[in-house]
């Protein structure tokens, strides 16, 4: 599978209309290399294999395991983890200066590039700012009675604080090393509290906090080229992937007790974490935003704008309502109602406040609270007809059918996209009595057709909504034409009168459920899959399907996959 998205939101927007190319092929993503078929082992690999599961194919499916690259905490994980350590507060200015995160080859923010000098300085300045912000909290954590042995107090603070930050117990020598930072602060004339703050800074800048690698200085233990993650690695991976934050007390206890590598303890902990709606919802939202908009939630919020002359109804309050609706809907369907992917894509209800009700043309809802409301009949179908989706994929002045089409094609259906050719024709300028569909039809022929035969029908289907997500049957004087036909990547031919009909067929398609489960795998692993684990997407998909496309079941299937709890050793790695 190749994604052709931007390294940055800026470039994504830059290329926003250029979704055309040659050789746009309709093959489903399997994360397998060309020539392999999803679910069929590629052979010649050295994986130990996971045996048979599911059992809908004649061949056994190899689970296999892939590498686990050294992964730095994303800004979201970094900030949430610091909140776990030091309490909530304003985000320091230094964090705003961090090099923006870009989408990697997984199609999600995954393995971040090396830390340059500017970001090393950023981590330093941020750590200094956090200790200032949290000086009272640090005082409580490192409390030391009058006359007590300061070094003893500092040592016990280090044992607790660094244990939590590093997600593992510290070696005695590591405790002494951090204590030396405290001592040097005292020697410089800093008081006790400020010297403890230096220790906190050293912890927050330490690679043992910043990277997901809970072995410390120990080499990993490999069997047949595979490494089973340790209890502490598992706890951290589970917590950082489900909550985006540090393991809580119960998970840390289970890791210390060595429980996570045996039986179904990991699954039990995963279920326990998933039952915390608030923390899990953060991650669900992060996944949703990266999946559909290829950017982080803060970037989505700050970049969503509309031209005030064309859309006077759009303001920050409406924008926040749109964001809250999508987030609340996801949380409700997936976490509270324990619902399915089908429900996400086809629900005829949503969570509306008074502002959203006017966007939807729904009656009976006023005020600021989001209320579950049935939507006007025949006009809507789940997440992908919500105002946020429709507004975020439009420009500030109007709809952008190719962008909507590209999102459906590559992110919902995992269709492939070719590179953009030279001399891209621009859409026609807006003009009276010319519909958006007519303006963007410049891509439907010639060299652009290779991709736009798929992208255009998918995008034009959404012309029943304006750039705020309001339903429309007219564009100016002209009637909207939202009809279309195409073949999905796996070959299924569909035709439809409008987006609602299209989305019903998307929701029922194998393309969508396979794509969604493979997106979830990539998001969780932070990388694309490798040959050795080519069977994993199918195994995960099978479990997802047999659960009735239950999203939590998918999440648990990903966590239950061998490649989540194991990794392959990498070239040049020192192992025991």
């Amino acid at each position, binding site marked *: 599978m190749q994604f052709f998205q931007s*390294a*940055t939101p*800026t*470039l994504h*927007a*830059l*290329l*926003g*209309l250029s979704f055309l190319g040659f050789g746009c092929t309709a093959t489903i993503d399997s994360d397998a290399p060309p020539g392999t078929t999803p679910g069929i082992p590629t052979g010649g690999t050295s994986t130990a294999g996971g045996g048979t599961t599911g059992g809908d194919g004649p061949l056994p499916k190899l689970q296999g395991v892939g590498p686990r*690259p050294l992964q730095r905490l994303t800004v979201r994980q970094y900030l949430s983890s610091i909140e776990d350590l030091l309490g909530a507060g304003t985000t*320091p200015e*230094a964090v705003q*200066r961090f*090099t923006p995160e870009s*989408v990697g*080859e997984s199609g999600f923010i995954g393995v971040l*590039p*090396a*830390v*340059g*000098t*500017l*970001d*090393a*300085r950023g981590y*330093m300045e941020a*750590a*200094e*700012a956090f200790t*200032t*912000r949290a000086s009272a909290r640090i005082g409580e954590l490192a409390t030391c009675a009058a006359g007590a042995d300061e070094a003893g107090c500092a040592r016990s603070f280090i044992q607790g604080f660094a244990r939590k930050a590093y997600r593992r117990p510290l070696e005695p020598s590591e405790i002494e090393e951090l204590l*030396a930072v405290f001592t040097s602060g005292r020697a410089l004339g800093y008081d006790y509290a400020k010297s403890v703050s*230096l220790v906190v800074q*050293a912890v927050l*800048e*330490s*690679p*043992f906090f910043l990277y997901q*690698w809970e072995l*410390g*200085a120990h080499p990993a233990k490999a069997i047949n080229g595979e490494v089973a993650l340790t209890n502490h690695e598992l706890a951290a991976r589970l917590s950082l992937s489900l909550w985006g934050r540090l393991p809580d007390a119960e998970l840390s206890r289970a890791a210390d007790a060595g429980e996570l590598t045996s039986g179904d303890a990991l699954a039990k902990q995963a279920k326990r974490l998933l039952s915390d709606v608030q923390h899990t919802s953060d991650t669900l939202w992060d996944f949703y935003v990266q999946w559909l908009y290829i950017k982080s939630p803060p970037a989505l919020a700050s970049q969503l704008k509309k*031209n005030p*002359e064309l859309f006077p109804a759009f303001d920050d309050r409406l924008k926040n309502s749109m964001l809250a609706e999508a987030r609340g809907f996801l949380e409700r369907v997936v976490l509270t109602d324990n619902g399915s992917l089908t429900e996400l894509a086809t629900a005829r209800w949503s969570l509306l406040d008074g502002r959203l009700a006017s966007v939807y043309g729904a009656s009976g809802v006023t005020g600021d609270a989001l209320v579950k409301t049935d939507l006007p009949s025949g006009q809507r179908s789940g997440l992908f007809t919500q105002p946020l989706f429709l507004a975020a994929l439009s*420009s500030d002045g*109007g709809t*952008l059918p*190719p962008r909507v089409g590209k999102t459906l094609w590559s992110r919902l259906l995992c269709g492939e996209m070719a*590179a*953009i*050719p*030279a*001399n891209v024709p*621009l*859409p026609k*300028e807006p003009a009276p009595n010319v519909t958006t569909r007519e303006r963007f039809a410049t891509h439907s022929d010639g060299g652009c057709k290779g991709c736009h035969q798929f992208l255009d029908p998918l995008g034009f289907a959404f012309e029943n909504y304006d750039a705020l997500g309001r339903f429309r049957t007219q564009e100016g004087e002209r009637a909207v034409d939202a009809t279309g036909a195409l073949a999905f990547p796996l070959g299924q031919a569909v035709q439809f009168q409008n987006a609602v009909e299209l989305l019903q067929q998307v929701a029922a398609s194998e393309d969508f459920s396979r794509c969604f489960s493979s997106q979830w795998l990539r998001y969780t692993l932070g990388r694309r899959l490798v040959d050795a684990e080519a069977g994993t997407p199918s195994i995960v998909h099978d479990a997802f399907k047999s659960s009735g496309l239950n999203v939590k079941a998918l999440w648990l299937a990903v966590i239950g996959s061998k490649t989540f709890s194991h990794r392959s*050793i*990498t070239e*040049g790695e*020192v*192992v025991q």
Partner: protein
Amino acid sequence: MSSHNNRNGFSRRQLLRGLGLGAATLPLLQAELARSSCLAVAPKRVILVFWCNGINNQGSWAPVGGGALPGYLASLEPHRSDLVFMRGVTFQNLRDTPNPQKADNAGHGATPAVWTGTRYADLRPFHEEAGGPSLDHHISAEWKKQGKYDRGPLHLGVRHEGYQLSWRGARDAAPPDNDPFHAFDTLFGSVTPSGQPDPAFEQLRQARKSVLDRVAGDLTRLCQNLGTEDRARCDAHLQSVRELEMQLQATNVGACDKLQLTRGFNPKADDGTEKAFQAQLDIAVAALASDAARIATITFGNEGNNHIVPTWLGIKPVGDSGGIGDSNSHHSIAHSGDARKLKLDGWHYQQMANLIERLKTTKEADGTRMLDNTVLVVANCQETGGGHGTAKVPWILAGNSGGYFRTGQAIQADFQHTDVLNAVCEAVGVGIEGYTQPEYRGVLAALKA
């Protein structure tokens, strides 16, 4: 600094809080920078400036063999004898990638190629990473080996938020600081106006050293067991911490003439962009004059600049009708290639004229112009604003670098951009081994005096 600080009622301690803790925006209106070189023996210096989006009127750009410069280049007329206009720069290392789509339509994606002389590390669509060091880091590393100078390049940006331009090595980017106030404080925050080290800063400096030594120790231990690729990233982090320690140890004494750095604008906003660019150029000159750096890169925007509307030229945002940003953004304007683009090109070159003027008027201790010991390379990413070609990109070079370059000419040839970059290496006395791959090792003879 503090003469102004005191006038404005801010104490050193408040300043240090801002510097050390980074939490508060310093409410300073002005600060002072070095205005002339204070070095007994003038060293060679390098300035690399980049912006993207091409020149639409290729035909009118600096005519070979003389003749009037077009209006948008008029500001450079007084400096012509110090310039080389280079028509026909080709990013061969970009064009040699196996993807034919790269060859001639990749100007926006050329950014990691601009200062480097290796093929890309990996052919990842829209996720470009350089395959080796950029010119600034290569020279810096070589100077360090030669014992000439051991501080790294200074990277300054203006609303840069995309592909990287500077690389310490393959996949090891060195992003610029987009905040001129932060950049200024980083460079000059540890000195008093008399040019003496600030005693109140010393305690902070030592505390930071203690923390960073611990961090470096942890990194050393973590890196040792990792596989090759992970170790490279881990080692790069360690190198960054070491460089940061070195930056913090340095005291940049600016006991020279004074320069005003005006604060009170937003370097992230359209209406602060012009001031941000000017501030970064001033900071670069001050850093080079006071030997806080010998190499500076200034990156204006990113590979497209659809996020920048030049409101400072009276061009107002009008909204986005096609999905590529505001129709009056730098990028959209470049696609249309009309009078707005000429105005914007003219503005960019005016900033370069101002920079060159500063380099001329800043005198070395021996009375010579700083420009004469400097080479400034002004790069673009592509040929025209709409075509994205990577074969005839217009670049400018200024300053003769101690007599190495033959300035006062406009040349047209089909040459690789590495022919220019390799010449810069020669000019500043470093080899090109380890910089450019063997197929990109030409040196443009026409440039040499």
